[in-house]
């Protein structure tokens, strides 16, 4: 009995130690970028010699962050709206109907999440450049929709499934067509699910690097791609202005992540989850 509880205690503190190690190191990693972005000069000492906020205005001008942020907003909004328009009706059909070829269709929607972006991104970029869409903002939006639309479908299907079919039948009994039933019955009930899905797509699209990198041209870069090029060419510019840009990027994602986490259970970030009823 004693030996068992001792082993258990050792095991528990080992796990706690590992988690602390991870969180502390990631936290310090972020803190290092933050410190550097406010540093006058920082060369191999614990703390920089002086503090300044001027790197932020420098980064803003140097990397044309105004236009980059604007492109990012346009891309992300377009991806969220279009993926909802494509994904929600498809999720509804997949949740409610059985039809021949349904399994094949599910596979078609799962594959883009299983194949890494680099593998299909390169043929996709080739096709987009042939259609004269490569390098434009439309090419970037289309490319980002490929993982986003199936993601919406996967998140929304269980949401639709949990809505009682009888509500729809009742609406039909009173003479509502599919369109009216959708607007007056389903949409209000689907509200929380739609909100969750759109926030998740938003956070993922801001951070998605590979597809944007492969399809973006000079004036259609999003924030994460601009940051990559800044770090890639780090020797040319003051490291502090690159760090200032990294901080701006992180603040943008963190704000949205925190908003998302208010409405969404973190486990929904990666997979479809049916909420267990808390009060049965």
């Amino acid at each position, binding site marked *: 009995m004693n030996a*068992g509880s001792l082993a*258990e205690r050792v095991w*528990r503190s080992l*796990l706690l130690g590992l*988690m602390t190690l*991870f*969180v502390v190191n*990631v936290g*310090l*990693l972020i803190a*290092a970028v933050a410190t*550097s972005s406010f540093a006058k000069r920082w060369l191999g000492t*614990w703390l920089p010699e002086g503090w300044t906020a001027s790197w932020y205005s420098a980064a803003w001008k140097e990397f044309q962050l105004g236009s980059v942020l604007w492109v990012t907003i346009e891309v992300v909004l377009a991806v969220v709206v279009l993926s909802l*328009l*494509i*994904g929600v*009706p*498809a999720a*509804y*059909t997949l949740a*409610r*109907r059985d039809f021949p070829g349904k399994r094949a269709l599910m596979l*078609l*929607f799962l594959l883009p*999440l*299983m*194949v*890494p972006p680099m*593998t*299909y991104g*390169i043929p*996709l*970029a*080739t*096709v987009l450049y042939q259609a004269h869409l490569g390098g434009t903002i439309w090419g970037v939006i289309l*490319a980002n929709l*490929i993982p986003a639309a199936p993601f919406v479908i996967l998140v929304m299907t269980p949401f639709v499934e949990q809505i009682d*079919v009888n509500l729809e*039948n009742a609406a039909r009994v009173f003479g509502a067509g*599919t369109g009216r039933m959708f607007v007056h019955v389903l949409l209000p009930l689907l509200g929380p699910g739609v909100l969750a899905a759109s926030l998740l797509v938003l956070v993922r699209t801001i*951070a998605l*690097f*590979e597809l944007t990198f*492969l399809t973006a041209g000079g004036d259609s870069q999003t924030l994460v791609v601009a*940051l*990559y090029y800044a*770090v890639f060419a780090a020797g040319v510019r003051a490291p502090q202005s*690159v*760090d200032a840009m990294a901080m701006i*990027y*992180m603040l943008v*994602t963190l704000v*949205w992540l925190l908003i998302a*986490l208010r409405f969404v259970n*973190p486990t*929904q*970030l*990666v997979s479809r989850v*049916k909420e*267990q009823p808390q009060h049965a």
Partner: protein
Amino acid sequence: MAASADTYARPAFDRTLLLVVPAAVFMLLLFVYPFLYGLQLSFRPKEGGLLWNYIHFFTTDNLWPTIGITLKLALPATLINVGLALPIAYKMRVKTRYQRVVTTLLVVPITLGTVLIAEGMLLYFGPKGWLSHFLQLIHLYDGPIRLTHNYWGVLISLVISGFPFAFLLILSYITGIDPVLARAAATLGAGPGAQFRHIYLPLLAPGLAMCFCLAFVQAFSVFPSAVLLGAPAGPTRVISIAAYEAAFEQYDYSLASAIAMVMGFVQLVIVAAVLGMRRVFYRGPVSGGKG
């Protein structure tokens, strides 16, 4: 309930099915078509016969070793991520006050993205970073540490960006398993270890295999951190760098597509092996909790 959709007479053609058409057309146009296009493009090389690109890939010194280099990074990273995530997620399955806080803390790195993690690691793990200072302060290691611009830097960044993903996925599988099963086992005298081995682990097997595959796919396509944190000319010249160079530096889209196809194939082999292994070790109902 399930049959309620059929309780009233349906018209010969169910118009609801039309709702799935836009999504299907979209995926066919932008995912399947480019993929097939890339496949046939890979068989039409700039010069030489049908298989020239593939022969070129497997006979060129800076191309075929990229498979091994990528696997050498992706497999350990995936094993570390899943191996760490399993016990931690198992610990966090119980709903406590801290569950939400801890999961939130562990989620943050997902949204940082690989590029920001790379930039942060260059500062923090660099030879003059805080970690190096700290290790010298406590006299654990006095020399300059070398954790950036080599294999280890890329591996660490893969763990930082991949662990939260594996953790969340496994957590969502574990919380789907009914705790009543474990309590029943406890009534019959099973200790915590036996409960985990005989109740949770078999029910988790399908989820674990899935998680391993997804985490592996993510690690296998490593690109930004291999360039920024690794040594992209040598030890961390991963396969996506080779594909990118062929497409956007040599403008040989045919060769680039061939490399992308090889990449997809290797991945498929590993995924199939893992799913096959699950079948050997575990025979039983396919799913233990939520589907």
